[in-house]
């Protein structure tokens, strides 16, 4: 097991390094002088620019620049945001908690709902209910979450004014403790819903197919023969075994989840990494974009690593395969 983990960790580290290289190279393609872009004001003097250039090692040739980039990265220095004028690391740190709250809530709800609906569909394969669940979830899955989000925003926030217009809490409310949590939850309803509807399809389809597999297995047939109640078979025997691939997918799909977050946060101006991405794009804040991409990529790689390890524990065949 140990060697398996080490091997996996090594592979993940190599991937991270490749991401760093890619990240470095992509942003060399960016138009314009990165130093000049740090100042809006044209009165910036040559000395001021030279100072910045030296500070970020931009006066060196490409190879030297890369080395200094990696060195600074090793010290947790992702550069200074053009737009916010503060270290990218700090900008990201400020926004991560908000995004985590949203993602965890939405993902959790999507898993629960998706598994229930998927199990139902798998259980009733071939019926009308099955067809309806599958086609509806396929449709939801293909509708971009920003489109659904816009509709929700227009209907429930702008027209019916039931839900807040934007943001994650009432500004300067002075609320603390439970009252604050309630306020945040209230603000989260629409953005979370728009993400849930998007994720749910994935889990429905997955659970359904895994369910049909499991239902064909011998132990189900024997359980039936023993006279176990149908509902008991569904919940206790079939679903439990069908869940394994679903759990792994939750981790693997984090890269996919990222898209939903960017879209929902932009539409509902939820102050997290997703909205930050949109604003960084609008302001062409390259250091910040670079940091965001690194953050997203590394968290996806990390999630995959963790899932691999868990899977290795559960299913020893994987380890042998290695």
């Amino acid at each position, binding site marked *: 097991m140990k060697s398996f983990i080490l091997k996996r960790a090594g592979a993940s580290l190599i991937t991270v390094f490749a991401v760093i290289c890619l990240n470095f190279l992509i942003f060399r393609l960016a*138009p*314009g*002088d990165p130093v*000049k*872009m740090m*100042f*809006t*004001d*044209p*009165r*910036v*003097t040559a000395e*001021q620019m030279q100072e910045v250039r030296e500070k970020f090692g931009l006066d060196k040739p490409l190879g030297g620049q890369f080395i200094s980039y990696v060195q600074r990265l090793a010290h947790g220095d992702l550069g*200074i945001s*053009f*737009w*916010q*004028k*503060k*270290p990218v690391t700090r*900008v990201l740190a*400020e926004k991560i908690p908000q995004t985590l709250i949203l993602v965890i809530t939405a993902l959790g709800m999507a898993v629960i709902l998706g598994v229930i609906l998927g199990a139902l569909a798998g259980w009733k394969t071939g019926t009308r209910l099955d067809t309806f669940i599958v086609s509806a979830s396929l449709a939801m899955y293909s509708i971009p979450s920003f489109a659904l989000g816009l509709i929700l925003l227009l209907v429930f*926030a*702008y027209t019916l*004014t039931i839900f807040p*217009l*934007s*943001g*994650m*809490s009432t*500004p*300067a409310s002075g609320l603390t403790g439970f009252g604050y949590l309630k306020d945040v939850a209230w603000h989260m309803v629409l953005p979370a819903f728009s993400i849930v509807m998007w994720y749910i399809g994935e889990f429905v389809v997955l659970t359904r197919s895994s369910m049909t597999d499991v239902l064909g297995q011998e132990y189900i047939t024997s359980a039936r023969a023993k006279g176990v109640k149908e509902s008991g078979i569904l919940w206790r025997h079939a679903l439990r075994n069908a869940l394994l691939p679903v759990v792994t997918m939750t981790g693997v799909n984090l890269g996919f989840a990222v898209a939903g977050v960017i879209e929902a946060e*932009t*539409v*509902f*101006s939820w*102050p997290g990494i997703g*909205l930050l991405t949109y*604003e960084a794009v*609008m*302001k*062409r804040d390259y250091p910040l974009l670079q940091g965001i991409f690194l953050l997203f990529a590394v968290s996806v790689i990390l999630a995959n690593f963790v899932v691999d390890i868990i899977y290795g524990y559960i299913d020893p065949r994987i380890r042998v395969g290695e």
Partner: protein
Amino acid sequence: MVTTPKKKTFLKHFMVLLFAVLFFLQCAPATWGKAGVKTGGRLDVGFTQEESLESLTCGESWQYLEMGCVFWPLVYDQLWIMGPAPEYEAKPMLAKSWETEDHQTWTFHLQEDARFHDGEPVTAEDVKFSLVNLRKADPAWAYEDTNTKSITVIDEHTIQLTLKAKHGGKYPPAYWMPVIPKHVWGPHQENMLSYDNAQAIGSGKFKLKEFKPGQYLWLQKNKEYWGQNAYVDDVVFRCYGSQDAVNMALKKGEIDMVGYLGIPAISAEDFKGVKDIKFISAPGISMDWLTFNLHQDNAIQDLKVRKAIMHGIDKERLKNMVFFGYARKADSFIYPELSSHNPNLPQYNYDPEKAVNLLESAGYKDTDGNDLRNDPKSGEDLVFDFLVPSAWPDEIKCARLMKEQLREIGIKLNLKITDLSTYYGFYYEPTSDDFDISIATEEPGPHADWVWQFCRCDPDLEMGWNGAYYCNPKFDTYLDKMAEATDMDKRKEYLSEMQKLVAEDLPYGFLIRPDLICPVRTDKFEGYVKTMGGVSTWINPWSYFKVHLK
């Protein structure tokens, strides 16, 4: 009760003292305070996400970001502040008075009892620290009128500035400069921009209560303020995801006013005749113009082509289609209502026939039958790269309309829509020939000597302001004379000449001055102050100072 003589004199003295105090209060810089105004309440102000502050560092965002340049004048005092419309006079703030003899050496006398929010007194050292270090920290603070030879602290409350050049005009130097506390910033002197300034200690009428980047900024009245204080207890800048959300918030009563740019003209009708909402519109502070890149070696060089373009643009249509009629004429960097405006400038009215004649007579004819005129010199089609930033929706609309209109006179515009940083990168570097014509907009304000730097000959782009790459030595002579002129009439004369030269040479072609539409809620508050640019801009913190409960 019998009053003894002793008591009587006491009463007399007391009365005299009382009157003296009342009189003094009337004469103090704060004559605008009316007795009996209701204090308290919380003023909520809406900003869009894009306009909102993400940090309180003292750099560009205090200059160029909407929330930034409204935030700092509330929290930090300045030496003097520009008064409200229509006089726009220099009013004492931290400096209770100032004097100069030669307009080069200026002495400011500071308020003795001014204190920062942390209780430390405001001294001449703090002023000197701010003047020296802010401009070093960020080019955005490098104004001409704080370009000093020396700054002398004469005593704790007196400071003397010796400028590098004479500073004429009706305003003293050191305009629009926050005074920041030396005891807070001193340790970060070498790297001011990396100090996060989380406490935002200033000496202004408001102090920071809570700041959540991108969500809200909560200010509270500084109860210990040395002078006439504001009336409201709290001011909250709230951030919204889109302009729609800001509009809805105003209608719902979540906010009392819009933070900076007001509402888009297209939604103006939504706020007319609405209960508890007062519809305010003001002449704009910003102006839109075309910048012709005179570095380009093509037909743009030809004054006749530039004139034809100006005559080919239907400004009335821009006004109606883009600004819903809420806009005014602009023909100079100086607003027409200011006395220094030259009323006799050449005008470029919409006249496609004249435009066509100009082009025809200069030999620009369609020689290859593609409906586009050709340059007689190079034979090429009259196609120009037209630069617009994607962040300015109104200007994009203007550009699309101008593209249609100029097509009518045989000129094609290639819209180059870029993000804002790329735009500025291209715009301020005309020598790299990334554009032929660009749309540009600025907020000169009533004290706008600085905008003339846009026209100063600058072949090596040292100043960097001259996007048109315009160079006319005659203009520069007038500009130098104007900057140093202490005689107001002379100054006005030079300014007139400068305006005329720009209008004749057409490095910049003025298009329009959009109005600011800033509806405010009146169910709780009254006393909003309107200047050019509306109720809340970088030149107008007065609404925050004067708004009070009904």
